[in-house]
């Protein structure tokens, strides 16, 4: 018992000694942490419960209708998540090239990258989506809706992420680039083997944020008739004049998805922090 442990709480000579002050402080801290969490959870419970009761009290929620159509709306989750994952992957590609362009010393490349960021950030996403879907066919370029949606989303997010990636690349210490070029690596090789692998670790948390934002923005691709969550909710709601219920379901789905992916993101960040690879 005594070996390897503190004997502070052991009664010596039958007399109970008070725990040392450091342990008292630690115990007090732990208590207040637990109290905080309990109060937090209770507050949420009350607020969310109250909200649910309020919604139920409107008398507008028809369980029978929902039991038929809620599964249909939930069926859009796979499409929403699928479109978002595909779009974030392509957005990473756009952002990588965008960031390299923004850091290029070649004037034309810098100009193209800057124009890309400026143009995309200066126009609404919905216009970009509809431009690809509705305007391009006038010039004979008709792409399948899913391609239009993913392209427009990733092109748009790529522009925003360009600046994130640029900052990530610039965060790599100069010494890393010097060491790589002192080994004789070319600029391209230095970028690919030394700078980008480190920059990607720096921007992973930011990519997580963008992905969570994208899940919600992906609702806009419903305008190109992709049957994701929002499309199903809005069409069903309009058809039966039951938008209150269907939009509630859709909102709930997005909220749960966001919470889930935030949790995944936190786990990834913790793993990165703990990993051996310190930057």
């Amino acid at each position, binding site marked *: 018992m005594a070996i390897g442990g503190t004997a502070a709480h052991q009664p010596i000579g039958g007399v109970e000694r008070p725990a040392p002050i450091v342990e008292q402080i630690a115990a007090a801290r732990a208590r207040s942490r637990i109290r905080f969490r309990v109060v937090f959870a209770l507050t949420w419970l009350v607020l969310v419960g109250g909200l649910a009761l309020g919604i139920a009290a409107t008398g507008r929620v028809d369980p029978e209708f929902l039991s038929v159509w809620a599964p249909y709306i939930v069926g859009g989750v796979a499409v929403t998540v699928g479109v978002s994952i595909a779009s974030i992957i392509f957005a990473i590609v756009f952002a990588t090239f965008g960031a390299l362009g923004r850091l290029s*010393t070649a004037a034309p490349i810098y100009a193209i990258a800057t124009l890309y960021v400026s143009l995309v950030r200066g126009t609404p996403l919905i216009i970009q989506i509809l431009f690809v879907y509705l305007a391009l066919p006038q010039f004979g370029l008709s792409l399948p809706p899913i391609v239009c949606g993913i392209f427009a989303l990733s092109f748009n997010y790529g522009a925003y992420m360009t600046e994130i990636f640029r900052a990530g690349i610039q965060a790599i*210490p100069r*010494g*890393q680039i*010097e*060491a*790589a*070029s*002192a*080994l*004789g*690596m*070319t*600029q391209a*090789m230095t970028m690919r*083997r*030394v700078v980008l*692998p*480190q920059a990607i*670790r720096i921007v992973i948390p930011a990519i997580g944020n963008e992905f969570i934002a994208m899940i919600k923005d992906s609702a806009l691709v419903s305008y190109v008739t992709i049957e994701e969550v929002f499309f199903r909710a809005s069409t069903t709601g309009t058809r039966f004049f039951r938008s209150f219920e269907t939009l509630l379901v859709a909102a709930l789905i997005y909220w749960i998805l966001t919470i889930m992916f935030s949790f995944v993101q936190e786990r990834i960040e913790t793993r990165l922090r703990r990993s*051996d*690879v*310190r*930057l």
Partner: protein
Amino acid sequence: MTAPTTSSSAVSTGRGSGAVTDDGRTVRDPYAAPGALTPAGAQPIVRLLGVEKYFGTNHVLRGCTLEVYPRETICLIGRSGSGKSTLLRCINFLEEPTVGSVEVDGFRLEADPLHGRDRRHREQIRQIRLRAQMVFQEFNLFPHMRVIDNLIAGPIRVKGVPRREAIATAERYLAKVGLMDKRDEYPSRLSGGQKQRVAIARALTMEPSVLLFDEPTSALDPTLVGEVLAVMEDLAHEGVTMIVVTHEMQFAREAADRVYFIEDGQFAEAGPPEQCIDNPNDPRTRRFLARFRDAQFRDVTEPA
């Protein structure tokens, strides 16, 4: 050929005095003491001619001429801001010299600050760098690669050495710096001294003609300096050609064949350590070294 700027005394190292050029002329070595390791007639492995460097309008290097012979260890000393690191970084073009030329192992490159971005010029710089590997003050290991991957990245990607062969070479040098047991660790798990030894092994794995050290122990905890200097002294005694920018006078005294004192972007004094460190002629060298003596001996000699 090179016009010697200063020369203290003619050398005599057995077979003849000084180096003999292709056209038969005898040239005195500018700094007179290539050391016993340098056979007469040897071609210098590093040759700097009139290297100057401006940062903006700041004239940091004011014309440095230096020849380093195979198997020599050269120490560059001087106060901070004197230009010694800049000179070292000019050798492998981490800083592009403004004027002058650099030759490493027969590969010569003129300063070309106006066209430094040209593809051809960059390729020539790369050729110089393959021959002159650098060890940095801040180690600059790649944190996302294991130790062994840090070592083989250069040989595989740059020199095109087959992976198996690169690993064998890397392991040999890793053993030389005494860190075979850290082969698969990430740099973050190493102490400063271990990191610097890995950095030395990384430079050696490239099998360069000359090693450049840029204040290799300045970023280290005082207790870790010794292990790095020990590795460097071993290399010096094995005949690895090295140019070392350092504040470690004890190391310079024991390992250097020649010491150069740089003041205000120029060599103020050069010679074997017995002369340049222990018995300097130039008053500026004396003042600089006096501070080291003070720092080293104050505790013993001057009871408060």
